[in-house]
């Protein structure tokens, strides 16, 4: 069996299916036809299946875990972002409108991988040849994909929040809107702490436009990031343990270490900002977007342009 061939064919099929699913998802946003949503889901799941085939076949071709270089990492990242969105955002949070944007992220991830760092399946270099590649890298990809979903939701929150604020300002003369979850509880006892999960000062959800309410976007962003944060923490710790074993020190301010720390710090800041009066809502969201950008730098810039021990572009 020519696994290399199967993997690369499945990769191409994945891109086209994701692209089609993305178009269908946006069409659903615009036209709000349920048929379009069903169609978009079918194509999304077909794309995810092709993506999975591409990953597994790659592993068979190289005879090792299929995340040994940037190309493979991107393939897995795209898969996890799509599947994570389907499971967490659509399944748990019941928000149907985010998937198109996640598909867009995955299509870009795959396209960048195909254009800038395609490599043939090959064995691992000695530094990567450790069982820690299963632990550290899996945690890093999972954390990254969830942070990416949280980042997408946060960007959409900022857009939606602005339009809601405008609508609110326009309709100020009408009856006052009830205050939402994030506000101070009238019945709370002495030791009240702000709820970090409450909608970040976002006003009353109004069913207008194509996106879900800002409050719902904000909540799903928080949930996903709070889910990703311990995974990312674990990835950094596992990376430190591996670095101790491979390079003789658990922390050496290598660019990848530095940027994963920066990403960690920014998201830690986000989680704290959520429970700090005056930092909720837009300010916290801006921190989360900074974390998302930092995540992209951690992955792309550090691997490609900043010289360090983690320059695994070619495996």
């Amino acid at each position, binding site marked *: 069996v020519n696994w290399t061939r199967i993997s690369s064919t499945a990769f191409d099929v994945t891109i086209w299916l994701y692209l089609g699913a993305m178009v269908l998802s946006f069409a659903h946003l615009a036209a709000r036809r349920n048929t379009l949503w069903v169609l978009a889901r079918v194509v999304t799941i077909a794309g995810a299946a092709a993506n999975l085939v591409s990953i597994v076949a790659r592993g068979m071709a190289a005879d090792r875990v299929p995340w040994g270089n940037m190309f493979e990492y991107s393939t897995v990242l795209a898969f996890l972002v799509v599947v994570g969105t389907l499971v967490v955002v659509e399944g748990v949070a019941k928000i149907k409108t985010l998937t198109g944007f996640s598909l867009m992220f995955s299509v870009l991830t795959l396209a960048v991988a195909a254009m800038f760092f395609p490599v043939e399946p090959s064995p691992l270099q000695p530094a990567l040849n450790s069982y820690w590649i299963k632990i550290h890298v899996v945690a890093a990809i999972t954390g990254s994909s969830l942070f990416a979903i949280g980042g997408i939701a946060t960007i959409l929150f900022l857009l939606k929040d602005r339009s809601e604020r405008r609508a609110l300002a326009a309709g100020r003369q009408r009856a006052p809107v009830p205050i*939402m979850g994030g506000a101070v*509880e009238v019945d709370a006892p002495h030791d009240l702490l702000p709820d970090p999960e409450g909608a970040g000062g976002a006003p009353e959800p109004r069913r207008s436009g194509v996106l879900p309410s800002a409050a719902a976007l904000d909540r799903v962003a928080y949930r996903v990031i*709070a889910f990703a944060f*311990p995974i990312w923490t674990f990835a950094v710790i596992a990376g430190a343990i591996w670095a101790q074993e491979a390079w003789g020190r658990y922390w050496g301010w290598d660019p990848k270490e530095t940027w994963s720390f*920066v990403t960690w710090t920014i998201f830690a800041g986000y989680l704290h900002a959520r429970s700090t009066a005056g930092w909720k809502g837009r300010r916290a969201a801006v921190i989360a977007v900074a974390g998302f950008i930092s995540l992209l730098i951690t992955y792309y810039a550090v691997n490609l342009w900043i*010289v360090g021990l983690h320059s695994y572009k070619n495996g």
Partner: protein
Amino acid sequence: MTTSPGLTLRQSVALVWRTLRSMRTALILLLMLAAAAVIGSLLPQIPNSPERVGRYLGDHGFWGPLFFRAGFFDVYGSWWFVLITVLLFVSLAACLFPRTRAMIRAIRQRPIHARELDGFRHHAEVRVGTGPDEAAVIAARYLRRKRFRVSRDGLGVAAEKGVLREVGSLLFHWAFFLLLLGVIVGKGTGFTGRAVVTEGETFVDALLNYAGEIRTGRYFGGDFTGVGLELLDFEDSYRRNGQPIDFVSRVRVLDREGRPTRTEEIRVNHPAEVGGLHVFQEGFGWAPVLDVSLDGRRLWSSPIEMARDDPPDDVPATAMPWRGAIKLTAPEPDVTITLELWPDLRAFANFQLTGEPTSMLVQFDPYIRYSVYVGEIVDPALSGVDTTGLHRVGRSDLHAAGTSTFRVPRSGELRLSFPELRQYSVLLVSRDIGIPVVLTAAILVLVGLIPSLYVSRRKVWIRAEAAPGGALVKIGGFSLQRKDAFEEEFDRIVRGIGGAEAVEVQPEEKVGTS
């Protein structure tokens, strides 16, 4: 808070303390730490790559010195990075002490009873068939079974759950102090050095043997172990396309007295532990064994550890020749021999014929070109060669197992033989007693983090009142986090306490839940 000039010292201290305690300050310090790390990743750092710092300074005439003075080339050792870290930890401590005290108090204390239950966000009343006393007992038992901490006082019950959130959060934050301690103690009392050892030779753990390639902690006592590492054999293996498979040093460990104790295989990702030291495979190179004599007098007979030039762009490092030098101060005047080694003659031949660089992964008829210089050697200990003050008397070449003679004017006949080509291994030797502490701290960080994010704190109050035909049970509750999830839990509690035959008196009041 006003900052009027009339503040007493005590008030100012209190003000600073209050500022440090605020989450805002901690947040800003955290983000400043991230910003500092960004600088450290964008500019070359002296501890990691001093030569790149030098190049940067040369290329940036204006910004270079400015950044240098600001400590941007050694961010993690700069006074401001230390200051941010210290302030962050002080701020953290200022925040954690009162929270810890409050948490201990909350755990010791029984849940506090509430007088008025109607005002809570979640509120319900059910009618049950039992008497009020029994209803309260049943409710308390039910909540205890649901793992609430329960305190019953006659007809009233107070219950709470989810203290683990705060416990986890405090554990997470305090663990960073342990982490800091482990880092400071480990790095402060330890060292990291680079041991270069050729096949057949022994490296002894002692300061001078690291030849300057060592970084010791501030509190390192200089107590080297004196254990020896005899390199029996180094092996590098490659695939056909030149991709490395593995690098392995087979080492015999010698105790202080030089007695062999055991052998170890040190390979990438598989360090060895030797007498409290960790030894890692870091690099390797070629070390030709050369015998040099001048007019029959033997002047040199040992391996020379060669270094490889940095390759130009698009040339694999393995295609580059290796360089080294022999400095002889015995003859008059001094003689310097610079060497250029091609471990694979085919690569040399190909380069001469076509100009194409070829990777040299195995030795194949190793070939040395050498030049001979005469003139005073300024620094015989230095590995590099500065030929500016020297006079070149000629060049020649040499094959493995071969001999070559060279006539040095006024000195005599120089005779070089090249009996064998060995490899040397670069081993990273480090001592860090803080590692178990750091690892423990990291585990505690994770263990604390999970409940601090996912557990929610909720409280439930119950009051049973006598009513015709049984009792009226009033239930109130609220949750500090995950309010929408608590709504369902509260409904379950109401059903659980009321039992199957209970009648809900009035629908629970929901105020602005989402």
